[in-house]
């Protein structure tokens, strides 16, 4: 029983420490990750913008998976609907 209490305490302390470590930089890191994700998304959708993509055979498969992120992206960029012809989003 005692040992369990100690283990719980350590786990709790660890969770707090993780939060302390991450809280100050959460936004900077998330934003950097979002920028990278946006770049990847642009690669996947590059054919639709007339940029030839040698890997389009594979990226075509990814398009539906990225649909939700695409929607968030065009909203974030201040466009109410999909900016791409022939690719409707919402």
């Amino acid at each position, binding site marked *: 029983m005692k040992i369990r209490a100690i283990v719980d305490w*350590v786990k709790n*302390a*660890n969770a*707090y*420490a*993780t*939060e*302390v*470590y991450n*809280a*100050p*930089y*959460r*936004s*900077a*890191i*998330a*934003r*950097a990750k*979002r920028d990278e994700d946006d770049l990847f998304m642009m690669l996947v959708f590059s054919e639709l913008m007339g940029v030839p993509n040698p890997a389009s055979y594979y990226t075509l498969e990814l398009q539906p998976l990225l649909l939700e992120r695409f929607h968030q992206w065009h909203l974030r960029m201040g466009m109410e609907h999909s900016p791409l012809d022939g690719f409707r989003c919402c």
Partner: protein
Amino acid sequence: MNAILLMLLGLGAMFLGYVIYSKFIAEKIFKLDPNFRTPAHEFEDGIDFVPTNKYVLWGHHFTSVAGAAPIIGPAIAVIWGWVPAFLWVVFGTIFFAGVHDAGAIWASNRNKARSIGALTGDVVGKRSQSLFMIVIFLVLLMVNAVFATAISGLLINFPSSVVPVWGAIFVALIIGQVIFRKWMNLGTVSILGVIALYALIYAGPSFPIELPETVFGVSDNAQWILVLFAYAAIASLLPVWMLLQPRDYINGLQLFIGLFLVYGAVLISGPELVAPAFNTNVPEGTPSLVPLLFVTIACGAISGFHGLVASGTTSKQLDKETDLRFVGYFGAIGEGSLSLATIIAVTAGFATLADWQAVYHSFGQGGVTAFVQGGANILQNGLGLDVDLAQTLLTVMAVLFAGTTMDTGLRLQRYIFQEWGNIYNIKWMEKAAPATLLAVGTCLLLAFGAGGADGSGGLLIWPLFGTTNQLLAGLTLLVVTTMLVKLGRPMYVTLIPLLFLLVMTIYALLIQLMGFYHKSDWFLFSLDLVVLIAAIWIALESAGVLTRLVRENKASKAS
């Protein structure tokens, strides 16, 4: 007087301030509402807006605002004796800093967590907003130049700290990788990191490193300043998780360990204060206490820099509105207690009055070096640490603080340059590397321009930094006061500090301006003039906005 008594008096008064005064502010003035939907909930996105536990948020807020400044200021200001510095730190924390910090979070929280800069534009006026940008830029510029000078001084005075100071950066780099790649959990890493850091500190005195006195005619002081800026430039360009985040984290741990050690050693050894209560025999050239005391101690009594942190990041993570009393007000008390520890270290840490006078032989002396020397003596008497080791420990603590502030400051300055590049359509300035170079260039110009080729001039601008920082605080107080007037609530709790700050700042700027004129120091003269114009501008702006609002309020009551 015994240092234990001073410590208990100071901590007790600040604690009472938290229990009584902050309760009054929270309930009667800000009227905090636990049911108010905070921006963290309203706009929750997992990136900027994240409701955060109040103790975690307090830790974040406190460690972001506490740096080397609350150490340097009081360590210079005790030249007038310990009573004035003590009173200003304690009463400043209770009636100025606490209200200012909590007020900044409150103002931002009630306005969709917008930053104080943006709020100035909305609440006060567009003109004030551009003024705000300029003042922020000046504060960052000065803080970088001052801290670089302070660190280089420490590295030269305490060569034993060179290995642990730079070693700490490697420790941070390793911690960053370990956490990022999820090799270990954070509890283990924290313990290992602290052990590694203290092992380095322990090894430091055995491997002192001194730079050659001159290289190509550049003095050792100037060499360190150049190295520091090169480091800060690189650090500010790295992704934050690599260096800044782990560094901040170890610093936070160091801060608590350091405060604990110093206060513990004071309690055990109970040293007597050797410095005079009021120094009637100040060295020649020391300016008068009023108004210079109030700008020499900025952080630790009230600091505008806090408003930036409070409204920039803290307000976006506030879980409940009532938490801001603890996060903001108690955060200010944390910083006040760091300043109090400094005052004790630099007044009780010397064996005799003559020793103390030897350190404080002219104005601007003392500073962090006195803190390290005095603090180390107290640690030796209280805990039996070797003096060299204790000095290394405190130097590392001070340098890490100042270093982190430097690379954060440089990063912020770079953002400002990039924003200017964007506004004025200068393409090359929008890129990170050239903007960083510009930021470093302006800081170096200030560090060397103020004090000649050996770069020792950084500390000359300390009081000027204080005035600029107080101006920033004044702008935040103006925003909070304006909001209070608009809500028809009593405005004196923020108006009185605002008036006091404006009067003292303008008075201090005028005195310094005369000083620079007599010394024909045209570089600092023009810098002072810019700050003075900004200060008068803020005063006029405040008077204009507040009289208009009060008149409108009266008119609406009459009708």
